[in-house]
């Protein structure tokens, strides 16, 4: 029966008419069967065509599987049987006004009226502000107290509201409410001029500029006849790895700072800047804005620059190794990291955690290895996972990825990097097509999915940031933990607010 979901390749365009459009009952049964057998949800979204709602799912086992169906006005919730669908179903309910009956946690995701002009599933009046108008889970009892944090935070970070239900210092439950940065990017992508698309996606989440840029470029390339050359692929891979390096190093430093162990915090703060500056050398922007474009990259790396980058990395590598040792071998730091914010493999599996957080909880999935694109097809990545699922495991995974990424960048800089630079262009997208791209951004599996209409316009642009899977993991990590350990757990995940808010 598995044949009813069709296998698709990462970053390949398909005629939509060739993809299975199942009756809803079959769709539900098949999707649940795949996920229950260990499959994961990559995309699960609704779109409207000719005024009719449809639902589309992209699942992954060791391959990518997809199918669509006509959406009923209400349907029995998938979440009741598979927790992974939880946030996806809420998103569908909010965006398209389709109610998942029996959903155990049906609350809004980003607080906006649905796109279809239907009655609101949550019964909200969108003239009112959010904070007082969200049904937070609450625990009652004599010694229970609630702590509300945010949406404005003390540090210079993004807005999000955290509601802790505590008994003394112990957290019984943490509820995370986001949506404060909802900009309507998915809708914007369908309306904006094609030329603007690369610039819009680069603004989805500043720390994942290259990740989003590459995911989008791959989708557009699949839908057009433009193909990046080998040099461009290598440069994109280098940029992705530099992004990973800068972010992981910055977070490791911040983790150290959160336990008041200052030397690594200071050194990593500086080294993060050094890595950002490498991206600056390549494209003139520290976060890689303006580097990746459909069809290739806008800046080449010539021999002289390659030599310079190599020199800097060789200089940084021993420093990074030294500070990592200083940090991860200090008993005080280990005492804080170990056993803090644990997400067990079972929970991680049910929630479908991705990226370093997933790998720290025993799920080895890495899109670079499982669904390689760009130059990753030529890179041999070892499987990397830890089983403890605590802050230490997440820090250790990141530390190991840092050393791996340095190795990858060094090896790539030795290759031929000649490429023909591309610039803005107008693209004619293939009509009535479907493409899904999956990339390993530094937080984990990042996926863009594009559906085009009969005229070659974008019918639906679905973006799924890895944080979409992982925020629930942070909630779980706080169960029964000390509230004072929250900042540490939070930093070890360091999830994106704007990536989820879109």
């Amino acid at each position, binding site marked *: 029966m598995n044949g009813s979901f069709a296998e698709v390749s990462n970053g390949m365009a398909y005629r939509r008419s060739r993809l299975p459009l199942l009756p809803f009952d079959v769709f539900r049964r098949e999707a649940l069967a795949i996920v229950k057998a260990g499959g994961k949800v990559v995309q699960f979204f609704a779109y409207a065509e000719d005024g009719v709602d449809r639902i589309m799912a992209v699942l992954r086992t060791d391959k990518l599987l997809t199918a669509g169906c006509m959406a009923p006005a209400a349907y029995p919730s998938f979440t009741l049987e598979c927790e992974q669908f939880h946030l996806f179903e809420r998103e569908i309910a909010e965006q398209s006004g389709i109610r998942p009956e029996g959903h155990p946690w049906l609350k809004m995701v980003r607080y906006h009226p649905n796109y279809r002009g239907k009655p609101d599933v949550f019964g909200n009046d969108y003239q009112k502000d959010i904070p007082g108008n969200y049904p937070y889970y609450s625990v009652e009892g004599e010694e229970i*107290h*609630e*702590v*509300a*944090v945010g949406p404005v935070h*003390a*540090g210079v970070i993004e807005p999000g509201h955290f509601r802790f239900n505590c008994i*003394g*210092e112990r957290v019984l439950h943490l509820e995370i409410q986001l949506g404060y940065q909802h900009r309507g990017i998915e809708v914007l992508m369908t309306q904006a001029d094609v030329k603007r698309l690369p610039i819009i996606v680069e603004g989805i989440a500043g720390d994942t500029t290259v990740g989003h840029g590459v995911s989008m470029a791959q989708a557009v390339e699949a839908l057009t006849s433009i193909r990046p050359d080998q040099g461009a692929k290598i440069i994109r891979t280098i940029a992705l790895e530099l992004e990973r390096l800068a972010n992981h190093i910055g977070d490791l430093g911040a983790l*150290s700072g*959160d*336990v*008041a*162990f*200052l*030397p690594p*915090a*200071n*050194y990593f703060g*500086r080294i993060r800047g050094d890595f950002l500056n490498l991206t600056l050398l390549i494209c003139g922007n520290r976060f890689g804005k303006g580097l990746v474009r459909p069809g290739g990259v806008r800046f080449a790396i010539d021999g002289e620059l390659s030599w310079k980058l190599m020199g800097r990395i060789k200089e940084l590598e021993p420093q990074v190794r030294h500070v990592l040792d200083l940090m991860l071998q*200090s008993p*005080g*730091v280990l*005492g*804080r990291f170990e056993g*803090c914010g644990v997400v067990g493999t079972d929970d991680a599996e049910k929630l479908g955690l991705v990226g370093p957080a997933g790998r720290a909880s025993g799920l080895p999935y890495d899109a670079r290895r499982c669904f390689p694109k760009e130059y990753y097809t030529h890179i041999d990545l070892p499987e990397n996972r830890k089983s403890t699922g605590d802050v230490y495991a997440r820090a250790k995974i990141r530390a190991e990825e840092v050393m791996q990424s340095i190795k990858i960048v060094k090896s790539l800089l030795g290759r031929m990097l000649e490429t023909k630079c591309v610039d803005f262009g107008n693209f004619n997208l293939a009509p009535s097509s479907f493409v899904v791209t999956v990339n390993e951004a530094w937080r984990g599996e990042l996926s863009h999915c594009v559906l085009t209409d009969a005229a070659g316009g974008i019918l639906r642009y679905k973006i799924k940031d890895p944080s979409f899977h992982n925020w629930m993991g942070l909630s779980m990590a706080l169960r029964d933990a*000390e*509230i*004072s*350990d*929250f*900042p540490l757990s939070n930093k070890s995940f360091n999830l994106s607010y704007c990536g989820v808010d879109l």
Partner: protein
Amino acid sequence: MIESILLWILVILVSPFYAAVIGKVKAFFGGKKGPPLFIHYYTLIKLFQKGSVYSVSTTFVFRMGPMVSLSAILTALLFMPIAGRMPVLSFNGDVIFILYLLGLGRFFTIAAAMDTASPFEGMGAAREAFFPIFCEAAMFMILLLFVQLTGELRLAAYLTDSQPAGLWYAAGAPMLFAVVSLFIILLAENSRVPVDDPATHLELTMIHEVMVLDHSGPDLGLIELGAFIKLFFFSAFAARLICPVDTGNLLLNIGLFALALLGVYGTTGIVESIMARYRMDFVPRFLLVSFSLAFFAFVITLELAK
């Protein structure tokens, strides 16, 4: 008497300077330049020039908090012998009075924090009320040791002239314990790493800092000044114990005392640089180490006295 009062004023004036030494040491370990040594004076001047903002949900308790805490620590400082000179005030049993003056200051800080009805501040207040219980026990153990050695219940009897040297002669090894124990109390009472992190911006992990989040302007200035003086109070205690020399020359004594203070502040800075902060539930155990050390020091002297 005049000299004691002058020293008292001098100490209030230099306490922000010494606190900045810790920052310099930490900056050195972190490979930074760090803020200037006079940073805290700039901060205080800035704060005193500002206006205050009061939440409408607070009462007079909130406004009283900073005043009372500062007065409490200033009064306690009157009993502290500076550089081995006689303190301004001293009477038999004053050590107990001093401990409860500090307690009074803490009570009003906690009351002011609770007055804001902020969940953060309530949490900080709970922590601030809980941890000092252990400090107090340890402090009393140290005092018991001193009473055992000197037979007196006055701070001046332990720290003036060549008295500290006398303590060391009477019980050298137990005194080592007492100094370490006192240093742990110093770290805990002044919200230093590994008990608290004075540099963090994370409300959920703070102890002392979170209680003063709602104070602003001059009130915050008073609180900061109070914190510098409190740190100085404990450091002066420790400095006299580690540098018990009495040269007979006032200026030389003050010089040595100033150096010993630098040692204590410097050590605090080093501890902050090389240690990570403990988990919150580990802190009581850490403080109990301080109590145990003092307790053993006391038991050993009992044995010696026989």
